[in-house]
């Protein structure tokens, strides 16, 4: 038994496990120190958790786009971050216009719906153009070709939008009804936070229902199992792929509006980091899996907002919040090394394309 084990474990395994264990110990130690010192009050922890949940909701919605496309085409749609950026960056002009004529605050719900619809429409358009112009011809190309195309498309889109709408960030007008807090029990929750958390959750539920129960959703899942067999069963594969891209685009566009509600600002480079994080979330949850996208997104949001204060400051690292993006990327690296299947997914990272 021991002998067989020794044969299977290579030098690189040992190095990898050593790094993993060292980091694990550091995290546990940092957490203990922070708890002992009691640097933060319960209220601060609750606020951080809320931050995590709202970021997590947005990550889940974006991650859905990665997951669905990966499930069907086995490619990382690197330009999905630009699909996410294009919607809110366009819709900001509608929001500003509505604000300037006073409609925005007099009919907040209608305005929000209009802005969200525009954002989703633009994101869907961009996603579909990407699919039609760049990806469709590369469906059977060697493995790196679609990824490099996607990277190129990502830059092209970023700088196209920068050229069209300008280099400076645009500011979303604030909605008066979302100012202030609601008090639940003894906890005061900012209204924006609650709206974002709830709407992200509801949206994920709707999207999950679409994928799991509708006929098109069923077709989607069968295409992701086996394209040829699905085509033989009378499923129009092209149409399903287009539908997948639109679904991903729509959820990214709506996520963009939620993002804009939180951060108020949009600019051409806003997609890059959330896009990477959402991809991390998709991998964390298990790529190709809708529930996994939700789980991964929420977990990532929580780790990212709690992590720096929880264990980095315990380790005596100053300005730990600067490193929160680093935590997300470290999670990505370690998930792929130790559990390439993600939390809920099939094993994909090592299989051949």
């Amino acid at each position, binding site marked *: 038994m021991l002998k067989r084990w020794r044969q299977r474990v290579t030098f690189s395994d040992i*190095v990898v496990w050593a790094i993993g264990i060292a980091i694990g110990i550091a995290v546990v130690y940092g957490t203990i120190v922070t708890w002992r010192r009691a640097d933060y009050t319960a209220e601060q922890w609750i606020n951080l958790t809320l931050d995590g949940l709202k970021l997590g909701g947005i990550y889940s919605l974006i991650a859905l786009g990665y997951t669905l496309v990966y499930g069907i085409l086995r490619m990382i749609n690197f330009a999905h971050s630009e699909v996410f950026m294009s919607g809110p960056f366009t819709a900001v002009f509608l929001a500003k216009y509505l604000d300037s004529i006073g409609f925005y605050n007099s009919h907040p719900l209608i305005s929000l719906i209009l802005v969200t619809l525009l954002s989703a429409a633009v994101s869907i358009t961009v996603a579909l153009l990407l699919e039609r112009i760049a990806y469709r011809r590369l469906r059977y*190309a060697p493995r*790196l070709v679609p990824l490099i195309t996607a990277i*190129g498309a*990502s830059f092209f889109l970023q700088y*196209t939008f920068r050229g*069209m709408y300008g280099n400076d960030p645009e500011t979303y007008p604030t909605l008066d009804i979302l100012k202030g807090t609601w008090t639940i029990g003894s906890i005061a929750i900012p209204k924006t936070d609650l709206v974002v958390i709830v709407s992200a959750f509801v949206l994920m539920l709707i999207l999950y229902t679409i994928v799991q129960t509708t006929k098109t959703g069923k077709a989607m899942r069968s295409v992701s199992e086996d394209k040829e067999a699905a085509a033989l069963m009378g499923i129009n594969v092209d149409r399903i792929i287009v539908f997948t891209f639109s679904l991903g685009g729509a959820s990214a566009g709506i996520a963009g509006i939620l993002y804009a509600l939180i951060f108020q600002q949009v600019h051409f480079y806003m997609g890059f980091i959330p896009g990477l994080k959402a991809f991390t979330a998709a991998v964390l949850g298990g790529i190709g899996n809708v529930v996994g996208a939700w789980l991964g997104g929420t977990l990532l949001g929580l780790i990212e907002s709690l992590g720096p204060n929880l264990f980095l400051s315990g380790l005596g690292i100053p300005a730990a919040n600067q490193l929160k993006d680093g935590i997300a*990327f470290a999670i990505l*690296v370690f998930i*792929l090394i130790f559990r390439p299947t993600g939390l809920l997914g099939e094993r994909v990272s090592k299989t051949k394309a």
Partner: protein
Amino acid sequence: MKTDTASIWKQSVSSGLIAGAICLLVSLVGLVESFGDTYIIRGLLTLGDFILLIPIVLITYTALSRFSESSRTTLLGVSAVVGLVAGFILTLLVLLGQAVDLRVMFVNASPALFSQLMRGVPLPLGALIPPLQGLIAAILGLGIYLIPARPRSAVIQGILWVVLIGTLRDQILLIDLLKPRPIAAILKSVIFSSSGLTPIGALLVFAITAGLSYYLSGRKKRVAVSQPTKTQKRNRIILFFVLAVILYMLPKSLGIFYIEILDTTGLFIMMGLGLNIVVGFAGLLDLGYVAFYAIGAYTMGVLTSPGLGLYSLTFWQALPIALLAAWLAGILLGLPVLRMRGDYLAIVTLGFGEIVRLLVLSDWLKAYLGGTQGIQSIAQPQIGPLKFDTLQQLYYLILIGIVIVAFIAWRLKDSHLGRSWMAVREDEDVAQAMGINLVFTKLMAFSTGALFAGLAGTLGAAKLTSVYPHSMTFIVSINVLVLIIIGGMGSIPGVFVGALVLIGLPGLLTEFQEYRLWFYGLALVFMMLNRPEGLWPEARRKRELHEEITELVAE
């Protein structure tokens, strides 16, 4: 027959609409206006016009190749429709822009753009200008379509040279070799105007370059077949010496402006050669390549900068340590991630690159790495009394570095290791079955690539005498990746071609800087869709890519 003609017109209109949409995009992105005063031919054609009209030419050309059976009049009609429809869309933009202030949303939809689209003609009549221009462009597309293949490529090359030389007018006049009085006078009075070429100059440049290309394209074929290898070898040696002399003379005959660009291009060539091993030879897509550059540069900075006050070694003492650090980082990252598949590897390396940048930027390591301020007063190399502290002297150092790196890459390519890399690239499983140690092979690719980037990093640090975290972004990794893809993955000369085209050329055109990444993105997509093997392809890679396509067609 009737439905056939109807479908031809329908397709021409939709081609026209696509061309118009591209023109619209190019205008709104700001390319037309930004390059609107960069004349290619004085008074006739600006670079902006060229960028605006080239989509119409190209789309007309592709539309025509679909109807190759039709009569000439039909072809003429098709091009007219494409050109007019495309131009009409631009007219719509102008009219819309007059009615509403589009600048609230589109920053570039300014009166300046509109007047440029109408070539300065005031409105009622000016509305006719864009369709007219579109028509001319489309007829040009028709012309290019109708001439036979060999003169066609000559004409296209001639046009491209006119555009290139016209655009680079200011930079060409800066070359010291052209500065002697009679040459400069002739150049300035006959060929160049105050901006761009004169019409006569343009004709001259076109005639010379097109003629030359026509002549060469005919000659090449005959020579390649009949020439024995011995003369080929001799020619190669002669070429090598000529190249060496030119490279040696370059900094002496060029101004400081050029040398700066040459140095930067050189550093990118070095990085490109390294990434070429990782991506091109071994097929491992590394998107965090800048991390190794950063590690090289920062190690150099930490070890030599008196400003930071940690160590104060000389450049040469610190060099091996910096290289070792980069190499070790390559192994350290390589060990865990190399078991992953291509696209996952790409994202993880991207994450690694970002982690390195964030660490360098953080306050946590500020005492050691300088935080946002970076590290200043880094030592510059010195051999005895010879100090490499000007860009000219560093040019030679970078050149030596490139020669060493290129030599190593070239020798590695056909070595046992190099062939293992390519086997891994083609098919990991088969390679393993053939007895190739996957982990070792991939690690060697990763660490060699890291080493080269580390070398570029140390030289880059010495060149600027400072390093900043803000220059270690993802964009740098992308630049390097783009240049090896444009040049041809796995091809060593391709790296040089890619770096000269993508780093050297944009460096010359300062207006171009803002749109560099836009063009990079476009180039990546375009190359992947139409010419995945690159400009200077490696023979095996080309075969591989085309094989797969033909196989698929056969299926």
